[in-house]
């Protein structure tokens, strides 16, 4: 065609004015439009038999079960699996991206070796030989960072580095690491699990439970179930946090409070509960009472947080008078909250008698490990990664000789980015097992691409937040799109090369053994007709047909168990609480930074899923600029105008932002979106906005010694 569509339509339009009243031009236009749309470069849709298969999302931390539509055997779309307890048919924007992320331009297409500033492809065999050599030489000083909070692959990795002589096994910081520390300090056992399905009053301290905290898809399904459309809700949700975020937008009440003050709010509520007669046989109650009476009375809390005494009294009353109250604590952006706030929230649960009760907090047992020498999850969650890297950067701790990074992006996803990058640079040999060319992979000597969810066998074991133990399988439905391999298999092959005995030849064997061990666990069942929350509420658990478990899991059903670890020493740890929970102060011309995270901007390991960019509103990202939100009173105090470009300074670095006035941010706080400011990945992530996590300095929490960065002051100019 010599004339393109636009030019052709222009010609026709020129002649159309005088002929409007006869139908002939319209008919001609009709034909022309069909003709001009017959463009060979417009992709043709695939043809073939449609079918549906099931798996579990590994990109989304909510661990939801997926139903994948395939055409002629090729995965086409992902939706929520109605039969999976962490999905019940729902899916997050991130889990929905599982299929098209297979073809993300940011994927690492084959093993890559750093050569000068660039990478060159190498074969898997060459990569294994090089790694065996380098790791063999680094024996005794090999560290590992894992970003997978719920996979059995951690057993393989931890056993491997353990046998090489570990310099530390670190999980990327998350709500799970904070909760594990809190439980440990309080003398408790097990992973905190939240029974949203049976709760009727839920006090949410900071945690963005409907967006990034824990099993968010399932949390929303549970919320929704108690709120039939158009009817008075049968549950009461109260949100306490610095902004009216995605969670607070649907809660019944929003109580503004800085992330630094969440523990203070909890102890302020404890004051009311104790005054109303709440008591507990848990160790430390008397001291707790003294602590609470000594500094967390209504006036103290008002002075520290601005919250009116009547508001807290109202919350205490709502909790005390409800049948199934529950307190959930977390960081508004999923990391960096010290254990103090978690402990204060748990203290409320204990005072309310809500431990191991339906609609309360269950202490969930850990499933048995199957790889000899593997660390337990409890042990893995103990290590403090930002604290460690900071010590390495400052020269207070020796840098490990080698580092394995699995499904994690510490160079981007940690606070105080400059310090963390400095520490990573000190480690002489680094390998990243990443599916995408992320910021950390770009710093590594070797990048060994992990196959994606739909290309590998894997599993999801009780993600943090789940109210019950749950195990679901990840099943491959297509050959790897690129020359990638599942990291579990790579590590097992490497172990063989280094003559390290890990018992298994491939990762599928590990999973089979894990499932076999579940089949022997008493109390476990396949959630099908009966759901675990119904069992928690008293319905008898169905028996498990052991031999069929693998089959049931492959069919998309989950193994579940309503468990509670008997607590012998769970107490209030009031001495630690008294040190860790202190009213925060803001000073002068600074504001508190309150970052927020959303699944549509992915995780540090995924970058922004390409199709999810459309979901980002232009009040958050405009072109290449990200916006920070603040109320008009804050803007006025700072002397900044709506839409102005500002510089935010903190932790020795600075970021740009445009000012968006949003009145649902408490005064004195500036709220900033996370997930932007990538320097790696692809056109959908790279160069879009700023990474405000870099502005948060890491400090040590008094009492627990844990690293924290949930709230920090920044300068705005």
């Amino acid at each position, binding site marked *: 065609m010599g004339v393109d569509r636009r030019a052709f339509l222009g010609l026709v339009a020129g002649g159309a004015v005088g002929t409007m009243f006869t139908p002939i031009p*319209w008919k001609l236009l009709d034909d022309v*439009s069909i003709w001009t749309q017959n463009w060979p470069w*417009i992709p043709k*849709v695939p043809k073939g038999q449609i079918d549906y298969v099931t798996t579990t999302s590994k990109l989304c931390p909510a661990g939801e079960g997926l139903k994948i539509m395939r055409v002629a055997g090729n995965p086409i779309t992902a939706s929520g699996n109605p039969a999976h307890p962490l999905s019940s048919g729902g899916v997050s924007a991130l889990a*929905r991206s599982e299929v098209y992320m297979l073809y993300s331009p940011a994927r690492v297409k084959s093993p890559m070796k750093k050569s000068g500033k660039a990478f060159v492809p190498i074969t898997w065999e060459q990569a294994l030989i090089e790694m065996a050599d380098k790791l063999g030489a680094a024996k005794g000083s090999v560290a590992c960072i894992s970003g997978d909070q719920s996979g059995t692959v951690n057993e393989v990795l931890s056993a491997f580095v353990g046998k090489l002589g570990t310099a530390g096994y670190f999980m990327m910081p998350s709500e799970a690491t904070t909760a594990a520390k809190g439980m440990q300090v309080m003398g408790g056992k097990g992973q905190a699990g939240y029974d949203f399905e049976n709760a009727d009053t839920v006090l949410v301290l900071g945690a963005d439970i409907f967006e990034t905290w824990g099993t968010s898809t399932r949390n*929303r399904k549970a919320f929704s179930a108690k709120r039939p459309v*158009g009817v008075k809700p049968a549950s009461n949700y109260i949100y306490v946090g610095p902004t009216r975020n995605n969670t607070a937008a649907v809660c019944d009440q929003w109580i503004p409070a800085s992330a630094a003050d969440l523990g203070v709010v909890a102890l302020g509520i404890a004051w009311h509960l104790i005054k109303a007669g709440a008591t507990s046989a848990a160790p430390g109650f008397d001291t707790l009472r003294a602590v609470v009476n000594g500094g967390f009375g209504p006036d103290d809390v008002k002075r520290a947080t601005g919250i009116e005494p009547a508001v807290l009294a109202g919350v205490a009353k709502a909790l005390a008078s409800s049948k199934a109250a529950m307190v959930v604590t977390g960081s508004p952006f999923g990391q960096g909250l010290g254990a103090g706030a978690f402990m204060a929230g748990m203290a409320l649960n204990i005072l309310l008698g809500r431990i191991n009760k339906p609609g309360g907090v269950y202490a969930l047992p850990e499933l048995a490990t199957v790889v000899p020498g593997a660390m337990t999850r409890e042990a893995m969650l103990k290590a403090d990664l930002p604290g460690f890297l900071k010590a390495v950067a400052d020269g207070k701790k020796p840098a490990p000789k080698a580092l394995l990074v699995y499904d994690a992006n510490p160079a981007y996803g940690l606070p105080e980015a400059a310090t963390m990058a400095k520490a990573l640079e000190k480690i002489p040999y680094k390998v990243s097992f990443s599916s995408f060319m992320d910021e950390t992979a770009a710093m590594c000597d070797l990048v060994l691409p992990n196959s994606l969810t739909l290309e590998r066998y894997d599993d999801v074991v009780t993600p943090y937040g789940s109210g019950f133990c749950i195990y679901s399988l990840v099943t491959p439905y297509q050959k790897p799109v690129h020359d990638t391999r599942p990291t579990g298999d790579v590590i097992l092959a490497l172990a063989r090369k280094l003559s390290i005995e890990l018992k298994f030849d491939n990762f599928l064997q590990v999973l089979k053994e894990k499932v076999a061990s579940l089949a022997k666990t008493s109390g476990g069942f396949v959630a099908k007709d009966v759901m675990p929350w119904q069992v928690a509420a008293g319905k008898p658990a169905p028996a498990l047909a052991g031999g069929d478990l693998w089959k049931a899991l492959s069919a998309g059903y989950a193994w579940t168990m309503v468990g509670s670890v008997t607590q012998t020493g769970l107490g209030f740890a009031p001495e630690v609480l008294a040190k860790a929970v202190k009213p925060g102060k803001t000073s002068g011309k600074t504001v508190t930074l309150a970052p927020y995270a959303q699944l549509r901007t992915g995780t540090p390991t995924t970058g922004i899923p390409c199709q999810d*960019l459309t*979901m980002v509103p232009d009040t958050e990202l405009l072109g290449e600029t990200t916006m920070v939100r603040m109320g008009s009173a804050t803007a006025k105090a700072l002397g900044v105008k709506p839409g102005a470009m500002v510089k935010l300074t903190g932790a020795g670095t600075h970021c740009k932002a445009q000012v968006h006035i949003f009145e649902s941010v408490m005064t004195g706080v500036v709220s900033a979106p996370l997930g932007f400011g990538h320097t790696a990945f*692809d056109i959908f992530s790279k160069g879009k906005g700023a990474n405000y996590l870099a502005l948060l300095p890491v400090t040590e929490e008094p009492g627990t010694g844990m690293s924290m960065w949930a709230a920090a002051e920044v300068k705005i100019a």
Partner: protein
Amino acid sequence: MSGHSFKEFPITWGMVIDIDKCTGCGACMASCQTENNVNPQPEATNKLRSTSWMLVYELTNDKAFPDHDVAFLPRPCQQCGNPPCVSVCPVVATDKNEDGGIVSQIYPRCIGCRYCVAACPYHVRYFGWYDPIWPEGMTKTLSPLTSVRPRGVVEKCTFCHHRWNLAKDAARAAGKDPEDLEDGAYVTACVQNCPSGALSFGDLKNPKHKVHELIKSPYAFRLLERLGTKPQVYYISRREWVRKLGDNYLKSEKTE
């Protein structure tokens, strides 16, 4: 408004959106895009040029902190009973003649004049400014159930019309009446995947379908109802300011 007379359909597919449950996560938008072959857009924050048949708006009550409130409003095509877009289309690329009351859009017939874009008060119609380009290999994930539109035509939400055909086929195969589908046998991709249960879908005229009752709620309203477009999408909110905003009441207007 459109000059067309209001058409009745024996089956009238409709959506009910509970604003008090929507958290604004965008899963409905993601579901819509992948279901309907909307390509990924690197400049997607340019809302004047990007395409998203389902769009989640952020509403506020316009008050200062701490009285400020926020709500999210997912907006598919409203499938108006009296659609303003239909009467302005010079080539009859869009129509409301189909059963089910879904406003159709025939892409090969569209000449891209964008009269409908201008006429639609809900901004549901999107003009393809650019060629639909997918990153290499990603066309393997295209859905066979919807066509890929070239640039230069107007496109919009069709209530995942293809799913209706699939549901009818499934009913026929099961020996059931395809004209009397059970509640839930046909739902759109956004409704199916919303983790908050904020969206419901069904035949507004069928008493066996949940939406039939829901639209009678005292909290139910339609967007810009006063224009007389009679949308088949209903919203529900217990918050009065949301309902008022939905019908664009001016601050000076008396409401109740």
